[in-house]
């Protein structure tokens, strides 16, 4: 079963990369156009440069070259940086993962207990309070929250306003201080989704007939919640976890640009603007792979958690 999924993912990646290549090739203009604005460079030189970087070849030929260089583990050479894309991306991927993993852990770590608490007290005051909070967080755009935090940090002068390290390399504590705000903003974006999903899953599972039957034979309520209801409510949550993992390389794009976090975000935005095709493709490929891994992980977890799926699996 696993091998079929891996094959499917490979096909998916091919389809995504081909679609993206065609998309970018169809857009007018390329990296060297802006070069024409520099009076010191003649048009002839620009055309020669274009030929040298192979931009004059049709897009499917360049796609072929890209596939070959992916096989070599370089993922194409960036026209702008003159370096293999893989070398450019790896340090940035690490920074993005650091940001998204912390924020995802923060969001899930807060949302699961809150969801349980709200579900147990369903309809009560606590449930209402959490719901309104989640509604508010959902309504506030991540971009705005980020800007306000940077603005506040700039005023406070105690709190770092963006970037990953202060000018003097402060080591781990310094990085954590810089990580707090962007991770907080991302977590504020993810928390309401996870909370509401978990609360509704618990509410639905606790309404199923076997819960009342269990209470009728004296199973203690805490054991029912933690043991019986939780396992059933886990199914929808596992699919959501799959999607969360899927987004770890793409969900933080805007936050990274606002906070100046040296991840994939700023690099990708610049790559799209400068039409550096290979550099655009790599983050898209990485997030496609992340999504496929996320889905696969979710399916495996589902089979582990629910015997009915295991039978059907």
């Amino acid at each position, binding site marked *: 079963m696993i091998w079929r999924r891996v094959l499917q993912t490979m096909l998916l990646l091919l389809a995504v990369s081909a679609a993206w290549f065609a998309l970018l090739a169809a857009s*007018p203009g*390329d990296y060297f156009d802006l070069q024409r604005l520099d009076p010191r460079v003649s*048009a002839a030189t620009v055309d020669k440069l274009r030929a040298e970087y192979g931009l004059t070849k049709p897009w499917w030929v360049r796609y072929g070259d890209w596939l070959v260089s992916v096989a070599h583990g370089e993922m194409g050479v960036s026209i702008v940086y003159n370096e293999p894309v893989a070398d450019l991306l790896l340090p*940035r991927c690490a920074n993005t993962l650091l940001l998204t993993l912390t924020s995802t852990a923060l969001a899930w770590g807060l949302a699961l207990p809150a969801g349980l608490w709200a579900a147990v007290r369903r309809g009560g005051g606590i449930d209402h309070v959490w719901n309104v909070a989640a509604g508010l967080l959902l309504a506030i755009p991540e971009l705005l929250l980020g800007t306000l935090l940077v603005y506040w940090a*700039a005023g406070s002068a105690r709190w770092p306003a963006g970037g990953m390290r202060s*000018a003097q390399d402060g080591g781990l504590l310094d990085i954590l201080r810089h990580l707090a705000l962007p991770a907080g903003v991302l977590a504020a974006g993810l928390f309401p989704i996870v909370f509401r999903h978990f609360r509704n899953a618990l509410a639905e599972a606790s309404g199923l007939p076997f819960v009342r039957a269990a209470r009728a034979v004296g199973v203690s309520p805490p054991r029912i919640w933690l043991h019986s209801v939780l396992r059933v409510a886990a199914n929808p949550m596992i699919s959501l976890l799959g999607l969360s993992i899927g987004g770890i390389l793409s969900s933080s794009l805007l936050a990274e640009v606002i906070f100046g976090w040296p991840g994939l975000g*700023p690099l990708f935005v610049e790559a799209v603007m400068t039409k550096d095709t290979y550099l655009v493709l790599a983050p898209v490929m990485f997030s496609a792979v992340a999504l496929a891994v996320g889905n696969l992980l979710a399916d495996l977890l589902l089979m582990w958690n629910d015997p009915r799926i295991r039978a059907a699996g």
Partner: protein
Amino acid sequence: MSRRGRSRGCQKQYNRIILAWRTSFYFLILPLLATALGAQTVQRGMRGGTLVIAQRSEPKTLNPLLSRDAPSREVLGRLSSDLMSVNRQTQKVEPVLAEWVHPSADGLHYTVHLRSGLRFSDGQPFNADDVVFSFQVYLDEKVHAVQRDPLLIHEKPVTVSKLDGQTVRIDLPGRYAPGERMFDSLPMLPRHLLEAAYREGKLNQVWGLSTKPEAMAGLGPFRVKEYRAGERLVLERNPYYWKAPQPYLDEIVFLFVGDEDAQIARFLTGDVDLVNRVSARNVGLLRARGVRVEDLGPSLEYNFLLFNLTKDASPGPKEWFQIKAFRQAVSAAIDRDGIVKLVYGGLASPLASPVSPGNKAWLNQKLTAGKHSAEQAKKLLSESGFTRDKAGELRDRNGKTVEFTIATGASSQERSAMATMIQADLQAIGMKVQIVPLESRSMVDRILNTHQYDTAVMGLGGADPDPVFETNVWKSAGGMHVWNPEQKQPATSWEAEIDRLMDEQASELKQEKRRELYNRVQEIVAEEMPLICLTSPHVLVAAQPRVKNLRPTIFDHYTLWNSDELFVAEAKTKERSAGR
């Protein structure tokens, strides 16, 4: 070679800078009182400390041959030195690596004698062979170096020959008006490190960002210490720099902060010491916080509204643009003072011609910026056969409503704002105009290659004040002749006259004569208006008070051109002092 006298306009600018400094706390501790006339003298600095400057985007390479973007050039400027370079403040060419330079009478030959005892930043000696090698690499067809085209005069390269270990002779194929300015931003390369790569033809794969510092060397005040992807590039003092006590700074850190507001935030928290080119809208909030923001007056850039005058059969907007009165009416309708006030908060100068007031040497003083008057515009339009219907919409001779688009580059917020105001101004005289924001590269592609646009708001200039660098723009065959690029022969008589004027001034050695020729070019453009000049933004620099010997100018690298003289008052303590 007559030296340019200091003109009246220049004098006013110096006063304003000195005035700005007098009010700042820094000035009080300076023993030397800056005189109204004399330029600032360099103050003995204290060694040590780190200077942090914010960059909008990362440098793309550390290889001078490939440095196509501004951030890379800004870094490379600190790592390398030229034989001779233009002093950004006095605009005079000064010998740097050369001890003396003897130009021949006809200006075609230069004998250059190098300073003795110069070493690269890796300790290797620098001599005439390196100079010959550098020129050879720059002029090599296959390398496509960025520096190649300026070294061609009438498509023929200069030739460099070695006279002895310390002296070379450079011969020009033809008379070249800017003379020694040609040698500015021509860094001398280390033969011992690059010759092997050059022979194998791999020059454009070397000296990338992640290359180990030991593999690179230059003659500039600093050398590469460390690069951290996406975050910062750290340069350290070059121990072998020829101006012994300088540079005073231990390190310069280039911090990559992608967005201007983020840059300002980090400036306010003290992470950043210097921000080049602050945009006008942020000046208010910085000054409100007691930050010293230097206004250096208009830059060399000129923003303009461009008409598509290319000849192709397609009907529609292009017919109207060919009518001179139509173009003049559009110019009259535009409220340039409104743009200066609303878009730049007063920190910009309206333009009379494509030469910005900041370029004192070549500005045609007699031209004045067009006055905003809707009546004049309406009069011009009705005279040339345009009528307004009941609904107030303008119609051309055969009754079609006047409707066209303005393309703007998405990256520049100020130019988009200008387009918004122009749209409102033109609507007032009945023209239906729609703004189309485009990603900058696709916009350039439309303007220069496919000509699929009506009008556009663009900005040019900013590299070098000398007119010869604008040849590509004004000559009808030029690649950058934006309104109708790369014409086989001039489409109109006035473009033919401009071609003639530009050729003549390129080889005219007498500066006075050159000025008259270039003034005429400016008059023609102001009259014919293929592009309507709008405004030139002021250069605004924000600096922390601890940065000393800072003498920013409106020419590129704005603040770091004298990086060897800069120093910081107190060395940066480990934990930034919280006292704000």
